[in-house]
Protein backbone atom coordinates (compact mmCIF):
# COMPACT_ATOMS: atom_id res chain seq x y z
CA UNK A 1 0.00 0.00 0.00
CA UNK A 2 2.57 2.58 -1.02
CA UNK A 3 0.07 4.84 -2.70
CA UNK A 4 -0.99 5.87 0.80
CA UNK A 5 1.39 7.28 3.38
CA UNK A 6 1.44 5.48 6.75
CA UNK A 7 -0.45 8.37 8.33
CA UNK A 8 -3.17 8.23 5.64
CA UNK A 9 -3.40 4.50 5.89
CA UNK A 10 -3.72 4.73 9.66
CA UNK A 11 -6.56 7.22 9.33
CA UNK A 12 -8.45 4.94 6.94
CA UNK A 13 -8.11 1.76 9.03
CA UNK A 14 -8.86 3.65 12.24
CA UNK A 15 -12.03 5.10 10.74
CA UNK A 16 -13.17 1.67 9.53
CA UNK A 17 -12.49 0.19 12.97
CA UNK A 18 -14.24 3.05 14.78
CA UNK A 19 -17.30 2.85 12.53
CA UNK A 20 -17.48 -0.95 12.68
CA UNK A 21 -17.43 -1.11 16.48
CA UNK A 22 -19.68 1.91 16.85
CA UNK A 23 -22.35 0.20 14.73
CA UNK A 24 -21.91 -3.28 16.14
CA UNK A 25 -22.13 -2.25 19.78
CA UNK A 26 -25.01 0.18 19.32
CA UNK A 27 -27.05 -2.25 17.21
CA UNK A 28 -28.75 -4.09 20.12
CA UNK A 29 -29.38 -0.80 21.95
CA UNK A 30 -30.80 0.69 18.78
CA UNK A 31 -33.06 -2.31 18.27
CA UNK A 32 -34.32 -2.14 21.84
CA UNK A 33 -34.93 1.60 21.64
CA UNK A 34 -36.71 1.32 18.30
CA UNK A 35 -38.92 -1.48 19.65
CA UNK A 36 -39.75 0.45 22.80
CA UNK A 37 -40.59 3.60 20.87
CA UNK A 38 -42.65 1.78 18.23
CA UNK A 39 -44.52 -0.76 20.35
CA UNK A 40 -44.69 0.34 23.95
CA UNK A 41 -46.47 3.23 25.55
CA UNK A 42 -44.81 4.43 28.70
CA UNK A 43 -44.44 7.58 30.72
CA UNK A 44 -41.79 9.90 29.37
CA UNK A 45 -41.77 8.34 25.91
CA UNK A 46 -41.51 11.74 24.27
CA UNK A 47 -38.52 12.61 26.46
CA UNK A 48 -36.74 9.39 25.48
CA UNK A 49 -37.57 10.11 21.85
CA UNK A 50 -36.16 13.60 22.23
CA UNK A 51 -32.97 12.39 23.89
CA UNK A 52 -32.40 9.84 21.14
CA UNK A 53 -32.77 12.47 18.47
CA UNK A 54 -30.82 15.18 20.29
CA UNK A 55 -27.42 14.44 18.65
CA UNK A 56 -29.07 14.94 15.27
CA UNK A 57 -30.08 18.50 16.14
CA UNK A 58 -27.38 19.69 18.53
CA UNK A 59 -24.19 21.14 17.06
CA UNK A 60 -21.74 18.19 17.02
CA UNK A 61 -19.23 20.24 19.00
CA UNK A 62 -21.79 20.52 21.79
CA UNK A 63 -22.37 16.76 21.78
CA UNK A 64 -18.61 16.23 21.88
CA UNK A 65 -18.23 18.57 24.81
CA UNK A 66 -21.09 16.89 26.67
CA UNK A 67 -19.37 13.54 26.11
CA UNK A 68 -16.18 15.01 27.51
CA UNK A 69 -18.08 16.29 30.53
CA UNK A 70 -19.61 12.84 31.09
CA UNK A 71 -16.86 10.42 30.12
CA UNK A 72 -13.75 12.55 30.63
CA UNK A 73 -11.31 11.11 33.16
CA UNK A 74 -12.19 13.88 35.62
CA UNK A 75 -15.93 13.38 35.36
CA UNK A 76 -17.50 11.04 37.97
CA UNK A 77 -18.76 8.53 35.42
CA UNK A 78 -15.53 8.67 33.42
CA UNK A 79 -13.48 8.18 36.58
CA UNK A 80 -15.64 5.25 37.69
CA UNK A 81 -15.23 3.60 34.30
CA UNK A 82 -11.48 4.25 34.42
CA UNK A 83 -11.33 2.29 37.68
CA UNK A 84 -12.65 -0.79 35.90
CA UNK A 85 -10.32 -0.23 32.98
CA UNK A 86 -12.57 1.49 30.46
CA UNK A 87 -11.16 4.75 29.17
CA UNK A 88 -12.78 6.79 26.43
CA UNK A 89 -10.99 10.13 26.55
CA UNK A 90 -8.35 10.55 23.83
CA UNK A 91 -8.55 6.90 22.77
CA UNK A 92 -9.96 5.30 19.64
CA UNK A 93 -12.73 3.85 21.84
CA UNK A 94 -13.77 7.40 22.57
CA UNK A 95 -13.95 8.10 18.84
CA UNK A 96 -16.17 5.02 18.52
CA UNK A 97 -18.40 6.24 21.35
CA UNK A 98 -18.74 9.67 19.75
CA UNK A 99 -19.52 8.09 16.38
CA UNK A 100 -22.07 5.74 17.95
CA UNK A 101 -23.88 8.55 19.75
CA UNK A 102 -23.99 10.67 16.61
CA UNK A 103 -25.19 7.79 14.43
CA UNK A 104 -27.73 6.45 16.96
CA UNK A 105 -30.72 8.60 15.87
CA UNK A 106 -30.32 7.55 12.25
CA UNK A 107 -30.13 3.89 13.19
CA UNK A 108 -33.16 4.04 15.50
CA UNK A 109 -35.18 5.99 12.98
CA UNK A 110 -34.69 3.47 10.17
CA UNK A 111 -35.45 0.52 12.47
CA UNK A 112 -38.49 2.19 13.97
CA UNK A 113 -39.95 2.98 10.56
CA UNK A 114 -39.64 -0.61 9.43
CA UNK A 115 -41.05 -1.85 12.73
CA UNK A 116 -44.07 0.42 12.47
CA UNK A 117 -44.85 -1.07 9.07
CA UNK A 118 -45.16 -4.53 10.62
CA UNK A 119 -48.60 -5.44 11.93
CA UNK A 120 -48.30 -6.13 15.69
CA UNK A 121 -51.22 -8.50 15.21
CA UNK A 122 -48.81 -10.96 13.62
CA UNK A 123 -47.13 -11.31 17.01
CA UNK A 124 -50.55 -11.92 18.55
CA UNK A 125 -51.16 -14.63 16.00
CA UNK A 126 -47.80 -16.20 16.87
CA UNK A 127 -48.74 -16.09 20.56
CA UNK A 128 -52.02 -17.93 19.96
CA UNK A 129 -49.97 -20.59 18.16
CA UNK A 130 -47.81 -21.12 21.22
CA UNK A 131 -44.88 -18.75 20.73
CA UNK A 132 -43.65 -16.79 23.74
CA UNK A 133 -43.02 -13.08 23.29
CA UNK A 134 -39.32 -13.60 22.73
CA UNK A 135 -39.90 -16.36 20.20
CA UNK A 136 -42.55 -14.35 18.40
CA UNK A 137 -40.11 -11.45 18.16
CA UNK A 138 -37.23 -13.62 16.96
CA UNK A 139 -39.19 -15.62 14.40
CA UNK A 140 -41.70 -13.07 13.12
CA UNK A 141 -40.83 -9.45 13.82
CA UNK A 142 -37.05 -9.62 13.55
CA UNK A 143 -36.96 -11.28 10.11
CA UNK A 144 -39.66 -8.93 8.85
CA UNK A 145 -37.77 -5.83 9.96
CA UNK A 146 -34.44 -7.07 8.60
CA UNK A 147 -34.45 -4.58 5.70
CA UNK A 148 -34.86 -1.77 8.22
CA UNK A 149 -32.09 -3.11 10.42
CA UNK A 150 -29.74 -3.30 7.45
CA UNK A 151 -30.65 0.15 6.26
CA UNK A 152 -30.21 1.52 9.78
CA UNK A 153 -26.85 -0.16 10.25
CA UNK A 154 -25.46 1.07 6.94
CA UNK A 155 -26.71 4.61 7.50
CA UNK A 156 -25.14 4.55 10.94
CA UNK A 157 -21.89 3.18 9.51
CA UNK A 158 -21.72 5.97 6.93
CA UNK A 159 -22.48 8.57 9.59
CA UNK A 160 -19.85 7.09 11.91
CA UNK A 161 -17.24 7.16 9.13
CA UNK A 162 -17.89 10.84 8.55
CA UNK A 163 -18.31 12.02 12.13
CA UNK A 164 -15.99 14.95 12.81
CA UNK A 165 -17.20 17.64 15.20
CA UNK A 166 -18.03 15.54 18.24
CA UNK A 167 -15.00 13.30 17.70
CA UNK A 168 -12.44 16.08 17.51
CA UNK A 169 -13.97 17.80 20.56
CA UNK A 170 -14.15 14.65 22.66
CA UNK A 171 -10.94 12.81 21.74
CA UNK A 172 -8.95 15.41 19.77
CA UNK A 173 -6.94 14.64 16.66
CA UNK A 174 -4.01 12.39 17.57
CA UNK A 175 -2.49 10.57 14.58
CA UNK A 176 -2.66 6.82 15.09
CA UNK A 177 -4.90 7.22 18.14
CA UNK A 178 -7.94 9.32 17.33
CA UNK A 179 -7.20 10.75 13.91
CA UNK A 180 -10.08 9.39 11.88
CA UNK A 181 -10.43 9.94 8.16
CA UNK A 182 -12.28 13.29 8.35
CA UNK A 183 -9.91 14.54 11.05
CA UNK A 184 -6.98 13.57 8.85
CA UNK A 185 -8.43 15.43 5.86
CA UNK A 186 -8.85 18.46 8.06
CA UNK A 187 -5.29 18.13 9.41
CA UNK A 188 -3.75 17.75 5.94
CA UNK A 189 -5.56 20.84 4.74
CA UNK A 190 -4.00 22.83 7.58
CA UNK A 191 -0.39 22.17 6.46
CA UNK A 192 1.26 23.40 3.25
CA UNK A 193 1.56 20.66 0.62
CA UNK A 194 -1.08 18.47 2.29
CA UNK A 195 -3.64 18.81 -0.52
CA UNK A 196 -2.50 15.66 -2.32
CA UNK A 197 -2.95 13.56 0.84
CA UNK A 198 -6.29 15.20 1.55
CA UNK A 199 -7.46 14.49 -1.98
CA UNK A 200 -6.52 10.81 -1.75
CA UNK A 201 -8.48 10.49 1.49
CA UNK A 202 -11.42 12.29 -0.04
CA UNK A 203 -11.39 9.76 -2.87
CA UNK A 204 -11.39 6.88 -0.40
CA UNK A 205 -14.24 8.50 1.53
CA UNK A 206 -16.34 8.75 -1.58
CA UNK A 207 -15.57 5.13 -2.53
CA UNK A 208 -16.48 3.80 0.93
CA UNK A 209 -19.68 5.83 1.14
CA UNK A 210 -20.72 4.80 -2.34
CA UNK A 211 -20.13 1.10 -1.79
CA UNK A 212 -21.92 1.22 1.58
CA UNK A 213 -24.92 2.76 -0.12
CA UNK A 214 -24.97 0.21 -2.94
CA UNK A 215 -24.56 -2.65 -0.51
CA UNK A 216 -27.44 -1.47 1.64
CA UNK A 217 -29.66 -1.10 -1.44
CA UNK A 218 -28.81 -4.61 -2.57
CA UNK A 219 -29.25 -6.17 0.87
CA UNK A 220 -32.55 -4.45 1.59
CA UNK A 221 -33.91 -5.36 -1.80
CA UNK A 222 -32.96 -8.99 -1.24
CA UNK A 223 -34.50 -9.01 2.21
CA UNK A 224 -37.64 -7.23 1.02
CA UNK A 225 -38.06 -9.77 -1.76
CA UNK A 226 -37.83 -12.60 0.72
CA UNK A 227 -40.38 -10.94 2.98
CA UNK A 228 -42.76 -9.69 0.32
CA UNK A 229 -43.55 -13.14 -1.02
CA UNK A 230 -43.65 -14.16 -4.71
Amino acid at each position, binding site marked *: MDWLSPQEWQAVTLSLRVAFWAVLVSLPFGLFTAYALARWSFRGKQIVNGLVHLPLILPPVVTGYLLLLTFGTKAPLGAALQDIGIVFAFRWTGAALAAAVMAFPLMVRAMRLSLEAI*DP*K*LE*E*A*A*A*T*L*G*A*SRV*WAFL*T*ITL*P*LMLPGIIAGAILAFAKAMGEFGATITFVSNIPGQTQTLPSAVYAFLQVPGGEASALRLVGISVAIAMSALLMSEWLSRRAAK*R*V*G*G*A
Partner: protein
Amino acid sequence: MTLSVRLQHRFNRLELDVEFDAPAGLTVLFGRSGSGKTTIVNAVAGLLRPDAGRVEVDGRVLLDTSEGVCLRPEARRLGYVFQEGRLFPHLTVWQNLGYGRYFAKRRKTTEPGKVIAMLGLEELLDRRPGALSGGEKQRVAIGRALLAEPELILADEPLAALDEARKAEILPYFERLRDEARVPILYVSHAPAEVARLATSVVALQDGRVARQGPAVEVLADANVLPAGVRGAGAMLHAVVVAHHDDGLSELEAGGVRLHVPRVAQQIGASIRLRVPAQEVILAKQKPEGLSALNILAGTVEAIREGGGPGAIVSLSTPAGRVLARITRRSARAMDLKPGSTCHAVLKTVAIAPEDVGGA
Protein backbone atom coordinates in the same frame (compact mmCIF):
# COMPACT_ATOMS: atom_id res chain seq x y z
CA MET B 1 -64.84 -31.35 25.63
CA THR B 2 -66.63 -28.20 26.65
CA LEU B 3 -65.75 -24.59 26.99
CA SER B 4 -67.35 -22.52 29.69
CA VAL B 5 -67.04 -18.79 29.72
CA ARG B 6 -68.00 -16.10 32.19
CA LEU B 7 -66.82 -12.57 31.49
CA GLN B 8 -67.34 -9.02 32.60
CA HIS B 9 -65.59 -6.21 30.85
CA ARG B 10 -66.11 -2.51 30.26
CA PHE B 11 -64.84 -1.44 26.92
CA ASN B 12 -65.57 1.97 25.40
CA ARG B 13 -69.35 2.27 25.54
CA LEU B 14 -69.90 -1.45 25.78
CA GLU B 15 -70.53 -3.15 29.06
CA LEU B 16 -69.97 -6.82 28.55
CA ASP B 17 -71.49 -9.30 30.97
CA VAL B 18 -71.88 -12.81 29.58
CA GLU B 19 -71.97 -16.39 30.71
CA PHE B 20 -72.30 -19.39 28.40
CA ASP B 21 -71.15 -22.93 27.72
CA ALA B 22 -69.98 -24.17 24.37
CA PRO B 23 -70.32 -27.94 23.94
CA ALA B 24 -68.31 -29.95 21.42
CA GLY B 25 -69.22 -28.93 17.91
CA LEU B 26 -69.47 -25.43 16.59
CA THR B 27 -70.90 -22.67 18.75
CA VAL B 28 -71.62 -19.41 17.01
CA LEU B 29 -71.38 -16.14 18.88
CA PHE B 30 -74.07 -14.35 16.96
CA GLY B 31 -74.89 -10.68 17.07
CA ARG B 32 -74.58 -7.35 15.33
CA SER B 33 -71.29 -5.51 15.21
CA GLY B 34 -70.63 -3.81 18.53
CA SER B 35 -72.38 -6.50 20.55
CA GLY B 36 -69.07 -7.66 22.05
CA LYS B 37 -68.35 -10.81 20.03
CA THR B 38 -64.71 -10.12 19.24
CA THR B 39 -64.04 -8.91 22.78
CA ILE B 40 -65.26 -12.27 24.08
CA VAL B 41 -63.11 -14.29 21.68
CA ASN B 42 -60.03 -12.20 22.42
CA ALA B 43 -60.58 -12.64 26.15
CA VAL B 44 -60.86 -16.41 25.66
CA ALA B 45 -57.67 -16.32 23.58
CA GLY B 46 -55.83 -14.27 26.19
CA LEU B 47 -55.22 -11.34 23.87
CA LEU B 48 -57.33 -9.18 26.14
CA ARG B 49 -57.55 -9.28 29.91
CA PRO B 50 -61.15 -8.81 31.05
CA ASP B 51 -62.09 -6.95 34.21
CA ALA B 52 -63.47 -10.14 35.71
CA GLY B 53 -64.27 -13.63 34.58
CA ARG B 54 -63.47 -17.28 34.31
CA VAL B 55 -62.70 -19.39 31.24
CA GLU B 56 -62.37 -23.13 31.41
CA VAL B 57 -61.79 -25.74 28.70
CA ASP B 58 -62.61 -29.24 29.76
CA GLY B 59 -61.63 -28.61 33.36
CA ARG B 60 -58.47 -26.67 32.48
CA VAL B 61 -58.69 -23.12 33.81
CA LEU B 62 -57.38 -20.55 31.35
CA LEU B 63 -58.57 -17.52 33.23
CA ASP B 64 -59.91 -16.94 36.69
CA THR B 65 -59.63 -13.36 37.83
CA SER B 66 -60.79 -14.19 41.36
CA GLU B 67 -57.87 -16.62 41.70
CA GLY B 68 -55.48 -14.36 39.82
CA VAL B 69 -55.07 -16.92 37.03
CA CYS B 70 -54.56 -15.54 33.55
CA LEU B 71 -52.61 -17.80 31.22
CA ARG B 72 -50.66 -16.14 28.45
CA PRO B 73 -52.06 -16.83 24.98
CA GLU B 74 -49.17 -19.17 24.14
CA ALA B 75 -50.05 -21.36 27.13
CA ARG B 76 -53.73 -21.72 26.29
CA ARG B 77 -53.37 -24.33 23.51
CA LEU B 78 -55.72 -22.75 21.02
CA GLY B 79 -56.08 -22.39 17.34
CA TYR B 80 -57.27 -18.95 16.34
CA VAL B 81 -58.46 -18.24 12.80
CA PHE B 82 -58.45 -14.48 12.38
CA GLN B 83 -60.65 -12.48 10.06
CA GLU B 84 -57.65 -11.27 8.02
CA GLY B 85 -55.77 -14.57 8.13
CA ARG B 86 -52.67 -13.07 9.70
CA LEU B 87 -50.36 -15.47 7.91
CA PHE B 88 -46.66 -14.77 8.37
CA PRO B 89 -45.62 -13.09 5.11
CA HIS B 90 -41.96 -14.17 5.21
CA LEU B 91 -42.73 -17.86 5.63
CA THR B 92 -43.97 -20.34 3.04
CA VAL B 93 -47.34 -22.02 3.40
CA TRP B 94 -45.59 -25.13 4.70
CA GLN B 95 -43.67 -23.10 7.30
CA ASN B 96 -46.83 -21.27 8.29
CA LEU B 97 -48.61 -24.58 8.79
CA GLY B 98 -45.72 -25.85 10.89
CA TYR B 99 -45.39 -22.76 13.08
CA GLY B 100 -47.80 -23.76 15.85
CA ARG B 101 -46.77 -27.37 15.48
CA TYR B 102 -43.24 -26.57 16.56
CA PHE B 103 -44.53 -25.39 19.93
CA ALA B 104 -46.93 -28.30 20.34
CA LYS B 105 -44.11 -30.87 20.31
CA ARG B 106 -45.43 -33.10 23.02
CA ARG B 107 -49.02 -33.27 21.87
CA LYS B 108 -48.76 -34.08 18.20
CA THR B 109 -51.60 -36.30 17.10
CA THR B 110 -52.84 -34.56 13.96
CA GLU B 111 -51.35 -35.75 10.69
CA PRO B 112 -50.16 -32.77 8.64
CA GLY B 113 -50.85 -34.77 5.47
CA LYS B 114 -54.48 -35.26 6.41
CA VAL B 115 -55.04 -31.59 7.18
CA ILE B 116 -53.29 -30.56 3.96
CA ALA B 117 -55.46 -32.93 1.97
CA MET B 118 -58.66 -31.90 3.74
CA LEU B 119 -58.00 -28.24 2.98
CA GLY B 120 -56.63 -28.88 -0.51
CA LEU B 121 -53.30 -27.19 0.17
CA GLU B 122 -51.01 -29.64 -1.66
CA GLU B 123 -50.26 -27.25 -4.52
CA LEU B 124 -49.64 -24.25 -2.29
CA LEU B 125 -47.02 -25.53 0.14
CA ASP B 126 -44.02 -23.75 -1.42
CA ARG B 127 -45.75 -20.44 -1.95
CA ARG B 128 -45.66 -17.44 0.30
CA PRO B 129 -48.85 -15.72 1.51
CA GLY B 130 -48.29 -12.81 -0.89
CA ALA B 131 -48.99 -15.16 -3.79
CA LEU B 132 -52.25 -16.59 -2.40
CA SER B 133 -55.84 -15.55 -3.04
CA GLY B 134 -58.06 -14.52 -0.14
CA GLY B 135 -59.76 -17.90 0.02
CA GLU B 136 -56.46 -19.78 -0.13
CA LYS B 137 -55.10 -17.64 2.70
CA GLN B 138 -58.04 -18.52 4.92
CA ARG B 139 -57.62 -22.21 4.14
CA VAL B 140 -53.98 -22.00 5.21
CA ALA B 141 -55.03 -20.09 8.33
CA ILE B 142 -57.46 -22.88 9.22
CA GLY B 143 -54.78 -25.50 8.66
CA ARG B 144 -52.26 -23.58 10.75
CA ALA B 145 -54.73 -23.37 13.64
CA LEU B 146 -55.58 -27.07 13.38
CA LEU B 147 -51.96 -28.22 13.30
CA ALA B 148 -51.17 -26.36 16.51
CA GLU B 149 -52.97 -29.27 18.23
CA PRO B 150 -55.53 -26.96 19.82
CA GLU B 151 -57.89 -27.93 22.60
CA LEU B 152 -60.18 -25.15 21.46
CA ILE B 153 -60.61 -23.47 18.08
CA LEU B 154 -61.55 -19.82 17.81
CA ALA B 155 -62.65 -18.13 14.62
CA ASP B 156 -63.44 -14.43 14.42
CA GLU B 157 -65.59 -13.79 11.34
CA PRO B 158 -63.19 -15.80 9.20
CA LEU B 159 -65.29 -15.25 6.08
CA ALA B 160 -66.11 -11.57 6.51
CA ALA B 161 -63.24 -10.35 4.37
CA LEU B 162 -64.10 -12.66 1.44
CA ASP B 163 -66.47 -12.18 -1.48
CA GLU B 164 -69.50 -14.44 -1.92
CA ALA B 165 -67.74 -16.95 -4.15
CA ARG B 166 -64.82 -17.33 -1.74
CA LYS B 167 -67.24 -17.67 1.19
CA ALA B 168 -68.93 -20.53 -0.59
CA GLU B 169 -65.48 -22.06 -1.08
CA ILE B 170 -64.53 -21.92 2.63
CA LEU B 171 -67.87 -22.79 4.28
CA PRO B 172 -67.63 -26.52 3.53
CA TYR B 173 -64.25 -26.68 5.30
CA PHE B 174 -65.80 -25.34 8.47
CA GLU B 175 -68.61 -27.87 8.12
CA ARG B 176 -66.03 -30.64 7.95
CA LEU B 177 -64.14 -29.15 10.85
CA ARG B 178 -67.34 -29.11 12.90
CA ASP B 179 -68.04 -32.73 12.05
CA GLU B 180 -64.50 -34.07 12.41
CA ALA B 181 -62.77 -32.02 15.09
CA ARG B 182 -63.24 -33.28 18.61
CA VAL B 183 -62.63 -29.90 20.17
CA PRO B 184 -65.12 -27.08 20.68
CA ILE B 185 -65.15 -24.39 18.04
CA LEU B 186 -66.16 -20.87 19.00
CA TYR B 187 -67.12 -19.01 15.84
CA VAL B 188 -68.01 -15.33 15.65
CA SER B 189 -70.44 -14.25 13.00
CA HIS B 190 -73.10 -11.72 12.19
CA ALA B 191 -74.20 -13.43 8.96
CA PRO B 192 -77.42 -15.45 9.38
CA ALA B 193 -76.58 -17.75 6.48
CA GLU B 194 -73.29 -18.78 8.10
CA VAL B 195 -75.00 -19.40 11.41
CA ALA B 196 -77.72 -21.53 9.85
CA ARG B 197 -75.19 -23.62 7.98
CA LEU B 198 -72.54 -24.09 10.63
CA ALA B 199 -73.94 -23.71 14.11
CA THR B 200 -74.50 -26.64 16.41
CA SER B 201 -75.47 -24.20 19.09
CA VAL B 202 -75.88 -20.46 19.13
CA VAL B 203 -75.13 -17.80 21.71
CA ALA B 204 -77.12 -14.74 20.63
CA LEU B 205 -75.62 -11.49 21.90
CA GLN B 206 -77.33 -8.15 22.26
CA ASP B 207 -75.51 -5.11 23.63
CA GLY B 208 -72.98 -7.12 25.56
CA ARG B 209 -75.44 -9.59 27.08
CA VAL B 210 -76.48 -13.09 26.15
CA ALA B 211 -80.00 -12.72 24.79
CA ARG B 212 -80.49 -16.43 24.26
CA GLN B 213 -78.37 -19.55 24.00
CA GLY B 214 -79.19 -23.05 22.89
CA PRO B 215 -79.37 -25.32 19.85
CA ALA B 216 -79.30 -23.40 16.58
CA VAL B 217 -82.79 -24.52 15.53
CA GLU B 218 -84.36 -23.06 18.64
CA VAL B 219 -82.45 -19.81 18.87
CA LEU B 220 -82.88 -18.91 15.20
CA ALA B 221 -86.64 -19.51 15.30
CA ASP B 222 -87.18 -17.37 18.38
CA ALA B 223 -89.07 -14.30 17.24
CA ASN B 224 -88.02 -12.45 20.38
CA VAL B 225 -84.32 -12.86 19.71
CA LEU B 226 -83.19 -11.47 16.39
CA PRO B 227 -79.46 -11.07 16.74
CA ALA B 228 -79.06 -10.19 13.09
CA GLY B 229 -81.94 -7.73 13.09
CA VAL B 230 -85.31 -8.10 11.41
CA ARG B 231 -83.83 -8.30 7.92
CA GLY B 232 -81.59 -11.20 8.76
CA ALA B 233 -84.25 -13.18 10.58
CA GLY B 234 -84.92 -16.70 9.40
CA ALA B 235 -85.61 -20.07 10.95
CA MET B 236 -83.73 -23.27 10.27
CA LEU B 237 -85.27 -26.57 9.21
CA HIS B 238 -83.78 -30.03 9.24
CA ALA B 239 -84.69 -32.12 6.21
CA VAL B 240 -83.73 -35.24 4.27
CA VAL B 241 -83.07 -35.24 0.54
CA VAL B 242 -85.69 -37.48 -1.10
CA ALA B 243 -85.16 -36.98 -4.81
CA HIS B 244 -83.41 -34.86 -7.41
CA HIS B 245 -85.76 -33.98 -10.24
CA ASP B 246 -84.89 -33.34 -13.87
CA ASP B 247 -86.21 -29.80 -13.81
CA GLY B 248 -83.42 -28.65 -11.49
CA LEU B 249 -85.30 -29.07 -8.25
CA SER B 250 -84.63 -31.26 -5.26
CA GLU B 251 -87.39 -32.75 -3.18
CA LEU B 252 -86.93 -32.71 0.59
CA GLU B 253 -88.84 -34.24 3.42
CA ALA B 254 -89.15 -32.48 6.74
CA GLY B 255 -91.46 -33.78 9.45
CA GLY B 256 -93.61 -35.58 6.90
CA VAL B 257 -93.95 -32.55 4.67
CA ARG B 258 -92.51 -32.44 1.15
CA LEU B 259 -90.58 -29.33 0.16
CA HIS B 260 -89.14 -28.35 -3.19
CA VAL B 261 -85.97 -26.31 -3.39
CA PRO B 262 -83.40 -25.53 -6.09
CA ARG B 263 -81.10 -28.48 -6.68
CA VAL B 264 -78.94 -29.17 -3.60
CA ALA B 265 -75.45 -30.66 -3.72
CA GLN B 266 -76.12 -33.42 -1.19
CA GLN B 267 -76.89 -37.06 -2.09
CA ILE B 268 -80.32 -38.63 -1.84
CA GLY B 269 -80.84 -39.75 1.74
CA ALA B 270 -78.53 -37.10 3.18
CA SER B 271 -79.66 -35.02 6.12
CA ILE B 272 -79.40 -31.34 5.44
CA ARG B 273 -80.25 -28.09 7.12
CA LEU B 274 -81.77 -25.17 5.34
CA ARG B 275 -82.45 -21.62 6.32
CA VAL B 276 -85.84 -20.14 5.51
CA PRO B 277 -85.48 -16.35 5.37
CA ALA B 278 -88.40 -14.73 7.21
CA GLN B 279 -88.96 -12.12 4.53
CA GLU B 280 -89.49 -14.79 1.86
CA VAL B 281 -92.41 -16.37 3.72
CA ILE B 282 -96.00 -15.34 2.94
CA LEU B 283 -98.88 -16.19 5.29
CA ALA B 284 -102.40 -17.17 4.23
CA LYS B 285 -105.49 -17.87 6.29
CA GLN B 286 -106.86 -20.51 3.91
CA LYS B 287 -104.81 -23.00 2.02
CA PRO B 288 -104.03 -21.10 -1.15
CA GLU B 289 -104.63 -22.59 -4.57
CA GLY B 290 -103.49 -21.69 -8.05
CA LEU B 291 -100.25 -20.26 -6.65
CA SER B 292 -96.85 -20.50 -8.31
CA ALA B 293 -95.12 -21.21 -4.99
CA LEU B 294 -94.50 -24.91 -4.47
CA ASN B 295 -94.12 -25.07 -0.72
CA ILE B 296 -97.11 -24.63 1.55
CA LEU B 297 -96.89 -25.49 5.23
CA ALA B 298 -99.90 -25.61 7.53
CA GLY B 299 -99.16 -24.34 11.01
CA THR B 300 -100.19 -22.58 14.19
CA VAL B 301 -99.13 -19.11 15.23
CA GLU B 302 -96.96 -19.23 18.32
CA ALA B 303 -95.95 -15.64 18.77
CA ILE B 304 -96.09 -12.31 17.03
CA ARG B 305 -93.42 -9.75 17.63
CA GLU B 306 -94.11 -6.24 16.50
CA GLY B 307 -91.18 -3.92 16.03
CA GLY B 308 -91.05 -0.15 15.93
CA GLY B 309 -91.57 -0.05 12.15
CA PRO B 310 -94.41 -1.28 9.99
CA GLY B 311 -93.30 -4.90 10.19
CA ALA B 312 -93.92 -7.84 12.48
CA ILE B 313 -92.28 -11.22 12.86
CA VAL B 314 -94.65 -14.16 13.18
CA SER B 315 -93.39 -17.41 14.58
CA LEU B 316 -95.28 -20.41 13.26
CA SER B 317 -95.18 -23.99 14.42
CA THR B 318 -95.43 -26.40 11.47
CA PRO B 319 -94.88 -30.14 11.15
CA ALA B 320 -91.59 -29.39 9.38
CA GLY B 321 -90.36 -27.25 12.24
CA ARG B 322 -90.65 -23.70 13.38
CA VAL B 323 -90.84 -21.07 10.65
CA LEU B 324 -90.53 -17.30 10.91
CA ALA B 325 -92.45 -14.97 8.62
CA ARG B 326 -91.92 -11.26 8.21
CA ILE B 327 -95.16 -9.49 7.35
CA THR B 328 -96.62 -6.04 7.95
CA ARG B 329 -98.45 -5.22 11.14
CA ARG B 330 -101.38 -4.19 9.00
CA SER B 331 -101.62 -7.67 7.46
CA ALA B 332 -101.32 -9.29 10.86
CA ARG B 333 -104.31 -7.27 12.07
CA ALA B 334 -106.31 -7.77 8.86
CA MET B 335 -105.81 -11.53 9.10
CA ASP B 336 -106.59 -11.42 12.79
CA LEU B 337 -103.46 -13.37 13.65
CA LYS B 338 -102.83 -14.15 17.27
CA PRO B 339 -101.14 -16.96 19.14
CA GLY B 340 -103.11 -20.13 18.49
CA SER B 341 -104.62 -19.14 15.14
CA THR B 342 -104.01 -21.50 12.30
CA CYS B 343 -102.63 -20.38 8.97
CA HIS B 344 -100.50 -21.48 6.04
CA ALA B 345 -96.94 -20.46 5.33
CA VAL B 346 -96.10 -20.11 1.65
CA LEU B 347 -92.49 -20.33 0.63
CA LYS B 348 -91.20 -19.59 -2.85
CA THR B 349 -88.87 -22.36 -3.96
CA VAL B 350 -86.32 -20.00 -5.48
CA ALA B 351 -86.09 -18.06 -2.22
CA ILE B 352 -83.86 -20.81 -0.85
CA ALA B 353 -80.39 -19.79 -2.01
CA PRO B 354 -77.60 -22.38 -2.30
CA GLU B 355 -75.73 -20.75 0.60
CA ASP B 356 -78.77 -21.36 2.81
CA VAL B 357 -78.37 -25.12 2.48
CA GLY B 358 -75.74 -27.14 4.29
CA GLY B 359 -74.99 -30.59 5.59
CA ALA B 360 -76.53 -31.36 8.96
